[in-house]
């Protein structure tokens, strides 16, 4: 099934119209010396057969786990209307809106999305999207490097470690120095950052809440950075922004983040949604598509892609970024989600997440051997120290139907016993209670097991 409409008879007729006798003649420019050495692919199949094949694969994944995993992407509820509206063919089978007369739907939706992001972050202008939260940080760094003409970036270790790894991969061939600043009890280490930010620093990257879930008000840090001419990039969790002081209110220059939690499914890693917003001063340095509102020839309100002269299709090697295809449909979904959940709803989602996480903390505190890290306030994610390797314990919980959180050992040296637990509005009191009980049980058995093998690990 190749979805080709033309019948063999029509193809013959068309070949004649082209003045050739066979389709092979149309490929005569391909020299015989580079003919495929192989093209052994399975034969095509019917829709039913293919659907069955993928259903079988899908069934090998889904284990009805109760998800307490976060680490930057979260299991939030998605209202049904998001799927219904985003699956309209007029939206999802369109290309980038180059012809405004045929794309007012996409263009207006992006304009509204930009506005929603601005209102959530308190910034002046947002772009139409980046690939994900990590690439958004990288693009923000490029903006800062170009704007300040400096070459050093300071990164708080509370920034998502996966994003930090991405940043270093992308810049391996460039002359950019990175300085990582360790956290203090899981929070931003202000003195260290202050010592590190000299007048060669283009930007400082912070995250709120940070990877450990710790919430902060970075206003003082931003002020110190600005004194030294450095910009501040803050990566934020958009759901938390319904509650927390947004970057625009504390002087952040570029706000970025992962927008998956706004109406996009987890989908094993993507597609996700990088969002980016900045202030008026830097808007022309911002990469990616931007939609503007203007008037048409008859004075009617109209929307267009604007500031395109910065982009790769015009500016080529001097463009602000190479991004072309972005995550438009994910941005559309985020905009639909925010429209449906709305002003009070978003506040409630954030409050629910926070309250349930605090409840989880209270339950974990009673489990022998478990220590909840409580030096700093957190939003909906927090770290617990377990009496043994968090990866091993997590494995036992997975076997009991719970994805208990992210073991931190892979990303933070010396944190092998730490687990990062996330709670969203979808988790019930009963699920949290069950998690606590199973954890207690697993740990109890773990001790039995360990005692048998007399390898008791220090608590």
């Amino acid at each position, binding site marked *: 099934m190749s979805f080709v409409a033309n019948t063999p008879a029509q193809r013959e007729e068309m070949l004649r119209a082209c003045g050739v006798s066979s389709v092979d003649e149309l490929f005569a420019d391909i020299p015989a010396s580079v003919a495929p050495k192989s093209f052994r692919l399975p034969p095509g199949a019917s829709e039913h057969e293919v659907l069955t094949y993928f259903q079988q694969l899908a069934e090998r994944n889904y284990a009805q786990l109760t998800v307490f995993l976060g680490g930057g992407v979260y299991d939030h509820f998605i209202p049904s209307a998001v799927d219904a509206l985003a699956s309209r063919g007029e939206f999802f089978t369109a290309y980038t809106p180059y012809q405004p007369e045929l794309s007012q739907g996409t263009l207006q939706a992006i304009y509204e999305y930009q506005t929603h992001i601005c209102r959530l972050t308190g910034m002046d202008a947002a772009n139409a999207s980046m690939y994900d939260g990590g690439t958004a940080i990288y693009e923000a760094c490029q903006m800062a490097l170009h704007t300040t003409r400096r070459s050093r970036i300071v990164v708080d270790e509370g920034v998502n470690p996966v994003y930090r790894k991405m940043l270093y991969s992308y810049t391996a061939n460039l002359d950019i120095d990175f300085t990582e600043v360790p956290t203090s009890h899981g929070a931003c280490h202000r003195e260290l950052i202050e010592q590190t930010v000299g007048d060669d620093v283009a930007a400082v990257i912070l995250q709120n809440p940070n990877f450990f879930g710790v919430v902060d008000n970075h206003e003082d840090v931003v002020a110190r950075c600005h004194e030294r001419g450095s910009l501040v990039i803050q990566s934020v969790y958009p759901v938390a922004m319904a509650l927390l002081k947004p970057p625009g209110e504390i002087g952040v220059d570029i706000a970025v983040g992962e927008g998956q939690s706004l109406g996009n499914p987890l989908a094993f890693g993507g597609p996700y949604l990088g969002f980016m917003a900045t202030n008026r001063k830097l808007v022309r340095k911002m990469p990616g598509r931007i939609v503007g509102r203007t008037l048409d020839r008859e004075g009617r309100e109209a929307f267009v892609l604007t500031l395109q*002269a910065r982009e790769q299709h015009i500016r080529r090697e001097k463009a602000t970024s190479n991004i072309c295809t972005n995550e438009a449909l994910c941005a559309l979904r985020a905009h639909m989600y925010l429209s449906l959940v709305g002003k009070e709803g978003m506040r409630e989602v954030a409050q629910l997440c926070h309250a349930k996480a605090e409840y989880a903390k209270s339950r974990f505190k009673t489990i022998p051997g478990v220590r909840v890290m409580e030096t700093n306030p957190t939003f909906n994610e927090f770290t617990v120290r377990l009496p043994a390797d968090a990866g091993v314990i997590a494995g036992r919980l997975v076997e009991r139907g719970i994805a208990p959180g992210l073991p931190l050992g892979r990303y933070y040296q010396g944190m092998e016993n730490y687990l990062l637990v996330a709670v969203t509005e979808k988790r019930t009191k009963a699920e949290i209670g069950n998690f606590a009980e199973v954890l207690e049980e697993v740990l109890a058995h773990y001790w039995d097991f360990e005692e048998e093998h007399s390898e008791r690990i220090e608590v």
Partner: protein
Amino acid sequence: MSQDDRKYATSHEWAKQDGDLIVVGISDHAQQELGDITFVELPPMGQVVEAGDECGVIESVKAATDLYAPVGGEVVAVNEALEVSPELINQDVWEAGWVLKLKPSNPGDIDALMSAADYDATV
């Protein structure tokens, strides 16, 4: 037709002596090619450039072009009016549409640029 009271670079800038400073703008030809100018990025004051260095960007809807220093020197003034009214370049490319002033490193460098007639012959 380019104006005779100034010199021209192959990269389409004009340079005009103003006391011991050099005023720099873009040529009428460049302005026409770009079309409606929507934004001018001015260089920072005090920037020291060599001839041929980038010292600004001029954007229209369909293109963006770098402004190159026609002679070496220090940027001592920029036309801030362009920040709010970039269309000044379209409206009055020779006077109100100037972009920046340079204090030249070598006052004689301007003589090496093209005359109006030579420049017009290249475009």
